[in-house]
């Protein structure tokens, strides 16, 4: 027994368990308050006040919404495949929650002479893990839509599948450019390399643009929310869902938003790095001791990470209440004819810039050359004859 207690305290098991539980709780809390935030942002953009009756400023609204969801009738259509119907939302929620496991939310805490990373698991293929889990996410939507035995649900599910497959390609290729620069798949390593204001956004402006657009598509957010397109498909893949199963689908969307904002922050905005962090850490260490100083500096780093994440979530909402939904063919055109060629071009430019030895300058010059080339080709293209316009 004594050796077991000793093992518990000496191994990282307890601390890791604590960190995982805290990250899990924070993920759920942020997702819950995203629903409140979404309604507030929507209201403020539309010159309204938004929910403000439940609690101060409507802060208890998520609780009221969840309470309402729980008391709704949990309906399963007679012709639906019962088990798949239940599996759909569970899978959606499960994959959404898993994807933030490899995200480093902060540097590390020094506890009892040991360094504990502020991260659920540190694996050297972090990015691949994120992509694997995110790709699984579409199964939740597909299974739910298929099991509902409803045309609208099925159409929504098919759209979700084709959309996610199309945009995952461009997303993956925009990431490869970053992987070439950093030479590692570990998210923590990528974050560490951006130390000192050396953020990837300055090296990969086009990559960031492509990644953001694809992240919107992967999260099924406007302007790419075709899977649940209300105007055409009633409710899309969750037409037949009610009660907390519907709640799970909606909740999974917000968790996905949180996770993709976290990944974006790590890949392009330096994760928990912030300008002047070395200075702050040195001051803290000289002020309150090595361990305490390091731990407090880590806490500030976590704060900067969460500021970036929250801004990411706000940006998701800001775009949702600005841009109308794409048409389905426009969506496919943008994905296959727009983003994938651009991602390939970005890949080539990055490779050339790395080989040339001038990374930063090389990439910007390469992008400028690419834009010039595209405009030349554009101006040389055969003009379309348009009878109406010509008349």
């Amino acid at each position, binding site marked *: 027994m004594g050796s077991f207690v000793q093992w518990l305290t000496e191994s990282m098991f307890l601390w890791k368990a604590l960190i995982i539980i805290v990250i899990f709780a924070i993920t759920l809390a942020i997702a819950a308050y995203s629903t409140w935030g979404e309604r507030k942002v929507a209201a*403020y*953009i539309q010159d*309204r006040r938004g929910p*403000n009756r439940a609690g101060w400023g409507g802060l208890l609204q998520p609780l009221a919404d969840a309470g309402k969801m729980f008391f709704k009738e949990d309906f399963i259509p007679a012709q639906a495949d019962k088990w798949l119907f239940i599996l759909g939302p569970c899978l959606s929620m499960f994959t959404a929650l898993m994807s933030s496991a490899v995200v480093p939310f902060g540097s590390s805490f020094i506890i009892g002479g040991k360094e504990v990373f502020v991260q659920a698991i540190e694996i050297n293929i972090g990015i691949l893990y994120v992509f694997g889990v995110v790709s699984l996410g579409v199964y939740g939507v597909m299974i739910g839509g298929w099991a509902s035995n409803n045309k609208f649900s099925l159409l929504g599910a098919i759209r979700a599948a084709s959309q996610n497959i199309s945009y995952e390609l461009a997303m993956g290729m925009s990431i490869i450019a970053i992987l070439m620069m950093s030479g590692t798949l570990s998210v923590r390593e990528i974050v560490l390399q951006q130390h000192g204001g050396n953020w990837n956004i300055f090296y990969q402006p086009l990559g960031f643009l492509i990644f953001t657009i694809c992240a919107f598509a992967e999260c099924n957010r406007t302007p790419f929310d075709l899977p649940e397109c209300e105007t055409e498909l009633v409710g899309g893949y969750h037409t037949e869902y009610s009660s907390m199963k519907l709640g799970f689908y909606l909740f999974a969307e917000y968790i996905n938003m949180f996770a993709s904002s976290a990944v974006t922050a790590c890949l392009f905005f330096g994760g928990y790095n912030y300008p002047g962090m070395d200075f702050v850490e040195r001051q803290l260490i000289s002020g309150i001791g090595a361990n305490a100083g390091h731990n407090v500096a880590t806490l500030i780093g976590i704060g900067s990470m969460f500021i970036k994440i929250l801004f990411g979530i706000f940006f998701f909402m*800001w775009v949702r209440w600005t*841009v109308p939904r794409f048409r389905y063919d426009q969506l496919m055109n943008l994905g296959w004819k727009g983003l994938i060629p651009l991602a390939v071009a970005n890949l080539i430019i990055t490779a050339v810039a790395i080989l040339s030895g001038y990374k930063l300058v090389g990439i910007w010059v390469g992008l400028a050359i690419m834009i010039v080339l595209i405009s030349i080709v554009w101006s040389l293209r055969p003009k379309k004859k348009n009878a109406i316009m010509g008349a």
Partner: protein
Amino acid sequence: MQLTNRAKKTDKSELSLFERSYLPSLATGLGITIKHFFQAKPTIEYPEQKRYLGPVFRGHHILKRDEEGRERCTACGLCAVACPAEAISMVAQERVKGEEHLYREEKYAAVYEINMLRCIFCGLCEEACPKQAVYLRHDMFVPVFTDRSNVVYGKDQLVEDMTHRYKRDAWTKEDAMKLWK
């Protein structure tokens, strides 16, 4: 024929590459929405905040008294006839000796009832009244009721209280226009 000068001629020329990239119009749109995000909101949070509804708002009914506190209503029934919703009913009675300080004329309404579920607040009773007895107040709503037994308003709720006399803010259009400034 030009009705307003807001009409814009649509530009049907082909989009340039920059415009085709969708990004400039996206940025413009984001700018517009963020501007609205920080703008002051025009919302009036009703139960806590109330706005002035003007001197001609048609709210709670009142049966006026004259300057000496005598009821003006003579139970002629013109308001009940004018009422399109048939919300008004009354029972007339003759004034007896010693009631001259209560009723202005020889006949008065012993019962005067308005059914607030039927009333549509059109103000036709006010227009029909030859004695300037019935008015719709501009400063008071009929309160929310939750029980049908509270719906028929009798004289106890309608006749003017002499300690809080009802006075309109403006009687002429000119006075009303001044209030709105």
